[in-house]
């Protein structure tokens, strides 16, 4: 049991309420495994409900916000301000016929939408919504996030392959190529966090940031920036939604899916987006803490506010930035982000060594690191961009080799 637990009416942490109910059950003579299983079921159901409700809300918010950004109205017919639009959409998706292409590999075609959702929901298990509100606070939490999201790759490939449609296969191969490239960047960006906190348990990471009053965004601005970019690619959101680029390859790997199967892909995409936002909030933005405000406001409300704010950032990016070409996207990962992330890990290790070896006080060292890291981030981005972008045309690759393999269109540049 968590040491944070208090009385059941202390709604700053809903874990208190659940804990009190479980205690009441075990006092009635239920064996241990009943409470164990029950606590798991309560956690899973709560997380699922939250994810689905948030998704319904954000379908509406995203479409309205995008409408505003693109100087149009957005959905405004169903209910006041179109607020019932997600429900109408959900009904439509549920009622639609699910078509299976004749040449599809039926087993894989049927399995793929399910397998795509599973990892997206499994990731949510490790995030501490507040001190006691976590389904499983693993001691390898940071690694768990990467491991679980990486298993979605094969499900995406299954969807594209089994549809026996060229656009599906192109979308799947683009998606797989993107995922494995940006996964490397993601892992390296995440790696610098445990270097500072000394623990991969997400609860400990939040506690560390609370303890030193230093969100890791101040110590790791470069890591956060790279993680945001890589995550936008991982969850297939514009400007890097080339795996389902409507104007190029219809809808990518889920071209052939309709009805609730298509809905599963949408659900997975949104939940993966929430998971990414939750990762950013937990690891870089201090989780459920807000410099003492968590004493008065429930921690989970703070966490959710930060999470939705971070998710809004992704909507904003989608509304503002144009889509990137696939070879540019791959080149950006390998030539720009990867070297910077390697430097970032090295830098984090050096700073940790300086901190522990000199024995300087945190109040002195952390602000110095923050200033240094922000300066270095700006210098590295500008400098490396100038070097990598300023290569003479002769030194650039003649033809992006991967483009043809993963289904891109390459235009021969004018002489």
């Amino acid at each position, binding site marked *: 049991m968590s040491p944070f637990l208090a009385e059941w009416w202390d709604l700053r942490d809903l874990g208190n309420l659940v804990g009190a109910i479980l205690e009441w059950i075990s006092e009635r003579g239920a064996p241990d*495994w009943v409470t164990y299983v029950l606590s798991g079921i309560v956690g899973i159901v709560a997380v699922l409900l939250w994810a689905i409700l948030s998704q319904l809300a954000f379908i509406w918010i995203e479409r309205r916000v995008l409408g505003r950004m693109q100087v149009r109205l957005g959905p405004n017919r169903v209910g006041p301000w179109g607020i019932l639009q997600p429900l109408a959409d959900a009904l439509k998706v549920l009622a639609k016929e699910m078509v299976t292409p004749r040449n599809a*590999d039926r*087993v*894989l075609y049927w*399995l793929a939408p399910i397998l795509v959702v599973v990892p997206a929901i499994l990731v949510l298990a490790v995030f501490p919504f507040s001190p006691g509100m976590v389904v499983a606070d*693993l*001691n*390898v939490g940071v*690694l*768990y996030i*990467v*491991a*679980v999201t*990486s*298993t979605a*790759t*094969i499900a995406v*490939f*299954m969807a594209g*392959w*089994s549809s026996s449609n060229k656009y599906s*296969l192109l979308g799947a*191969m683009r998606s*797989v190529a993107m*995922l*494995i490239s940006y*996964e490397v960047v993601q892992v390296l960006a995440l790696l610098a966090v445990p270097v500072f906190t000394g623990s*991969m348990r997400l609860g400990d990471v939040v506690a560390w940031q609370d303890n030193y009053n230093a969100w890791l965004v101040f110590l790791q601005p470069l890591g956060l920036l790279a993680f945001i970019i890589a995550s936008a690619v991982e969850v297939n959101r514009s400007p890097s939604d080339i795996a389902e680029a409507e104007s190029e390859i219809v809808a990518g790997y889920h071209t052939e899916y309709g009805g609730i199967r298509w809905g599963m892909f949408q659900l997975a995409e949104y939940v993966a987006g929430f998971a990414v936002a939750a990762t950013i909030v937990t690891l870089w933005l201090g989780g459920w803490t807000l410099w003492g405000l968590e004493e008065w406001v429930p921690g989970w409300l703070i966490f959710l506010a930060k999470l939705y704010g971070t998710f809004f950032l992704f909507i904003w990016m989608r509304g503002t930035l144009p889509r990137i070409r696939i070879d540019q996207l791959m080149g950006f990962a390998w030539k720009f982000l990867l070297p910077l992330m390697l430097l970032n890990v090295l830098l984090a290790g050096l700073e940790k060594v300086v901190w522990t070896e000199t024995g300087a006080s945190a109040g002195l060292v952390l602000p110095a690191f923050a200033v240094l890291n922000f300066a270095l981030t700006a210098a590295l981005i500008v400098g490396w961009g100038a070097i990598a972008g300023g290569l003479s045309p002769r030194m650039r690759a003649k033809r992006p*080799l991967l483009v043809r*393999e993963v289904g891109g269109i390459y235009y021969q540049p004018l002489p």
Partner: protein
Amino acid sequence: MEDVGSVVAFWALAVVTLGAALVTALVRDLVRAVVALVVSFLGVAGLFVLLSADFLGVAQALIYAGAIPVLIVFAIVLTPRAARDNAETGMRWPALVLAGALAGLVIAVAVATDWGDGAREGFRETASAIGEALLNRYVLPFEVASVLLLAAMLGAIVLVRED
């Protein structure tokens, strides 16, 4: 491991792992074989967690369920005019006999030996202990492994580059 949870988990994971491995061996379609292989790898990851190797379990899921299937998938897609089936050569019966004999031998040895394993507790958190071991006792193999990875990466690039 006497408690009910561990026993149930072991048998469930064992059935999943071995069943998925058999599906991998028997199914005719290569892509289906890859999917079954991923399930088998995830079963092994679960067994690692059951054996209180939490770090290895997650690493197994990351590498064997995330990275290696993607490599295999790329190999399948980059050989478009090759056969997609997973058939055996004419050597299937000798191979079956040999594999069965080897498995039988290992099982016989494993069952016959008195391992003298006491009822000791599982490890607690292994991530930091593995990290310490890698940077103290096993630092030389660690460095060699990184050089090996670099060499393998270069080798793979050189093998498939178009000149």
